[in-house]
């Protein structure tokens, strides 16, 4: 998705773009996500700024391809089950509002106006009207098509070609060389491998997540609804399994249930304890789900960076190499802003957000 968005904005800036993917479109993390475009789960800081920019850009894109990519500006609802949780959520909301997020506190007795099927007895919640959703596979495909970029799928980049003085001059693939003065590494969870081909380190690690998919239902879950402890899980550095219920309906009918996080490498094996925990958490939020059948699950690997910020922008270690990866679980949402910033850098303009927090070489300094 990040690559597709980079292609779109770079092509719009007048650049000649070729997209190379070792698999099919959306064959990696994009196709394993839920398509969330969230501001609600982000604490104030550079990631939230990027999310706000990205959400505006998604809304612009939706004017052309919104229906095709199942864009829904449906809003998010975060609920707290205890007074303690609600107090923490209230603090977060105050800080988010100051950063430009639209958020309305919803007292316990009004939660059911927003979500009639929510469990009783919750302490309260917050409504985030800016939270939106797309169907990520469709979004990547339609945005690639809209970009007009040359698309080469099923081609693995085996080498980053460099000039004698070290600058990038293209990539080598199993099907030949592609010459270009700039290469954008948008390989998601595998971004560290592509960086290594260019001789630089980028600490992208996989953080596994499962999603549980129910049978198609009439619209019973109107927003993206999740428990307040999800924000803490997202920000956590732990490698151990964490689950917090995230429930949302989709345009196609099935309800998607997340979210689990664990660092187990690229292990794709199914985990019954994880999906059991997801199902139990979802039923706590929406008791009617107990009677609903889960059809399937899917798993994916979020591109996790040690400080939870993506790597965006030029790599000072290799002239001509840029990175647009490491967005963890927010890559669909943050893709548009990322693409816009990359296109601005490629076009020689000043990026509209400060790229310093996203510098790809920031971890090297720490190590040194």
């Amino acid at each position, binding site marked *: 998705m990040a690559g597709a968005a980079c292609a779109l904005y770079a092509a719009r800036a007048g650049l000649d773009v070729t997209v190379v993917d070792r698999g099919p479109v959306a064959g990696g993390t994009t196709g394993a996500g839920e398509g969330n475009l969230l501001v609600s789960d982000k604490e104030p800081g550079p990631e939230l700024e990027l999310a706000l920019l990205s959400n505006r850009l998604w809304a612009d894109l939706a004017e052309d391809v919104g229906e095709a990519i199942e864009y829904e500006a449906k809003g998010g609802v975060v609920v707290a089950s205890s007074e303690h949780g609600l107090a923490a959520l209230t603090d977060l909301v105050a800080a988010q509002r100051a950063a430009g997020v639209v958020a309305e506190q919803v007292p316990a007795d009004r939660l059911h106006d927003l979500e009639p099927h929510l469990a009783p007895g919750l302490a309260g919640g917050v409504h985030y009207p800016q939270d939106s959703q797309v169907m990520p596979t469709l979004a990547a495909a339609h945005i690639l098509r809209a970009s007009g970029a040359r698309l080469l799928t099923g081609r693995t980049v085996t080498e980053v070609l460099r000039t004698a003085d070290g600058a990038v001059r293209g990539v080598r693939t199993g099907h030949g060389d592609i010459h270009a003065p700039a290469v954008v590494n948008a390989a998601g969870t595998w971004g560290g491998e592509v960086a290594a081909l260019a001789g630089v380190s980028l600490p992208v690690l996989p953080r596994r997540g499962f999603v549980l998919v129910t*049978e*198609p*239902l*009439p619209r019973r879950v109107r927003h993206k609804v999740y428990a307040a402890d999800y924000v803490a899980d997202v920000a956590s550095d732990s490698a151990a399994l964490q689950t917090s219920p995230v429930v949302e309906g989709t345009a196609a*009918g099935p309800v998607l249930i997340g979210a689990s996080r664990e660092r187990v490498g690229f292990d794709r094996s199914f985990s019954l304890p994880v999906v059991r925990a997801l199902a139990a958490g979802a039923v706590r939020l929406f008791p009617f789900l107990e009677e609903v*059948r889960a059809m399937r699950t899917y798993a994916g690997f979020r591109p996790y960076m040690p400080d939870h910020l993506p790597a965006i922008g030029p790599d000072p270690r290799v002239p001509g190499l840029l990175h647009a990866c490491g967005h963890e679980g927010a890559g669909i949402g943050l893709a548009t802003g990322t693409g816009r910033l990359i296109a601005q850098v490629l076009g020689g303009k000043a990026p509209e957000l400060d790229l310093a927090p996203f510098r790809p070489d920031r971890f090297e300094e720490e190590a040194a």
Partner: protein
Amino acid sequence: MNPLEPARAEPGPAFAVTLDGREIAALPGQTVATALWAAGVTSWRTTRGEGRPRGIFCGIGVCFDCLVTVNDRPNQRACLIPVRPGDAIRTQEGTGHEH
């Protein structure tokens, strides 16, 4: 060979189930799908989007095309669930949750 006839099988006595209230005969060991096929029914669901007819596609529980309502529970895979005496099988429209 007639696919509607058992091939060297010796099933127990037939029992009755209903499809939309109409009685049909089923044999022990059949799934809902095979019972419906044996009764000459090949379609028992219509799609959510365009109302197109659906029945067995993969037949092994993978594709979720053969969904059916049995005893008021919608979206069960007809190819996997064993048919039981007295089952009330209903053709399913849309998500199966709309009425």
